[in-house]
């Protein structure tokens, strides 16, 4: 019997294949930035500032004469690290909270649900801004802010999944054979609830890149000279009429990455056939 491999199925579809290729490219940029980037990201060259795209500088230079392409390649690092780390923390915390709330119920469930519904009613950007206002700007705080901003989504999704699963006969049967709470939650409930949460996490990573860029645009994220796509766009606004490429290329990088993530996520949802699970979010 052939093993069912949803990722392989997703890659075989046209949009899944293309988006996977683009994502691999972006990840390669992030991983091997020092090898791929033609220049260092922080070497300034004031005489050559705001230079047009040319053979030497494919995407031109910014207002300090830094090579834009190199900065975008290094910027992939910031964007991906922040988004992926933040969403990973958020998914793990959401899985744990949601599972405990659904499994144990009672006052704990009511408390978690109340807090989650409260944060759920605000847009993620607002929650992230409030948190950064409290803990101060920087890469670390952006990660914390993003992971808390998305926590509600994963907690709700996991809770809904576990609520449905915990009444399954096999859970009852394992209880009847003497299994403890820990065993039931981690061996039986979470593995069965995992798939939709992982896919939701993947789609949220795309949103998190935009959120990171937005916070970077406001100057709340990575501090100079560390390149981040959002901050680069922000500095490009001043030059928008003399050197539009400074804002266009980072914008394109964000757009292409996020679109690829969403397309791949869609392909994955289709190959896993879990539309109905995600509708509860």
């Amino acid at each position: 019997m052939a093993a069912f491999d949803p990722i392989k199925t997703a890659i075989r579809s046209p949009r899944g294949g293309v988006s996977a290729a683009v994502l691999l490219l972006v990840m390669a940029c992030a991983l091997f930035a020092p090898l791929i980037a033609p220049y260092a990201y922080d070497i300034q060259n004031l005489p050559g500032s705001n230079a047009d795209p040319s053979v030497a500088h494919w995407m031109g230079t910014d207002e300090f004469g830094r090579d834009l392409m190199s900065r975008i390649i290094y910027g992939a690092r910031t964007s991906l690290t922040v988004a992926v780390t933040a969403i990973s923390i958020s998914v793990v915390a959401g899985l744990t909270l949601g599972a405990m709330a659904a499994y144990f119920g009672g006052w704990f469930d009511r408390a978690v649900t109340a807090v989650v519904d409260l944060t759920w009613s605000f847009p993620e950007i607002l929650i992230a801004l409030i948190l950064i206002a409290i803990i101060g700007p920087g890469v670390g705080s952006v990660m914390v802010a993003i992971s808390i901003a998305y926590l509600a989504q994963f907690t709700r999704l996991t809770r809904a999944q576990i609520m449905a699963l915990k009444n399954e006969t096999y859970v009852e049967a394992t209880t009847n054979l003497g299994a403890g709470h820990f065993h039931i939650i981690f061996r039986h409930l979470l593995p069965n609830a995992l798939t939709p949460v992982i896919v939701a996490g993947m789609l949220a990573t795309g949103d998190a890149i935009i959120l990171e860029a937005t916070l970077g645009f406001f100057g709340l994220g990575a501090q100079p000279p560390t390149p981040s796509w959002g901050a680069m766009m922000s500095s490009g606004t001043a030059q928008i009429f003399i050197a539009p490429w400074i804002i266009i290329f980072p914008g394109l990088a964000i757009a292409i990455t996020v679109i690829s993530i969403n397309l791949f996520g869609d392909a994955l949802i289709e190959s896993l056939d879990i539309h109905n699970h995600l509708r509860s979010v």
Partner: protein
Amino acid sequence: MALLSVQSISVSIGQLNPLEGVTFDIDKREILGLVGESGSGKSLTAMCVMGLLPRIGGTITNGSIIFDGRELIGLPEIELRRLRGKRIALISQNPMTSLDPIIPIGAQIDQVSTLHLGLSPEAAKARSLDLIAQLRIPEPAAIHRAYPHQLSGGMKQRIVIAMALAADPDLIVADEPTTALDVTIQAQIIQIMVELVRDRSLALMLITHDMGVVAQACDRVVVLYAGRVAEMNTVGEVFANPKHPYTRELIRCIPRLGQEPGSLKGIPGAVPSIVDYPDGCRFNPRCSEAQEICRGQVPALERKSSGIAACHFSEV
């Protein structure tokens, strides 16, 4: 002393009292049938024995459950968990959904013996393979690797039985283990369970509403009606000489080969609703022999010429 002795337990869930004075006992190497219509309290009795009543918000208000010389009522959850699976195992109604769909069959059996017997993964696997073979499933090694959806209903039910046996329990509570299976598979599964009881000197509490299964497998029968014991006797006596009118009706309902088409009758009326039990004997509205006393006075569960029954009119 019997292995399990249930002494006149009563259960309340909120305002309701779904069980009243249920009494029976089971010894080793014995199969006790627990029969009755839906809503008579069969599964609830099983939950009492397993100590699972708090999960559905019920409490045992009266009586005692003594297992192997130990009182189970009032035992803390952690102690009960140690008993569940290790000393008392429950086989649930529906084999189709009793297995986790994303864990291989073998791992699911293994985990019971690693949990309760502290076996190493290799020893647990060897034990599981052995159990699968004992339950007459071909190619144990392939089945050990398979996932639940690759097996048929009958095979899944055997796997569920294997899981129940994995920690070598003394008492197995089987809650309608064959209801979801077709008749030929049902006969095989019952046959296997009967053999297991004899070979391993287990005690089996077989919950069913099928008098045919009772006749095939059980040594003794408890007939429940609306949360009370109507009659308890050996299988031979119950079929040859039923003491309670309800038992007589149940036996009359077993279809027979060569029966006139259309002559099969049910018991008229329905099981009374738990919120509105009749006074006196709870079977009186459906009983053809009911008298004034049946409507006013609860019949005591008394020893008759053989077995015990709760009827004003059965001979002493």
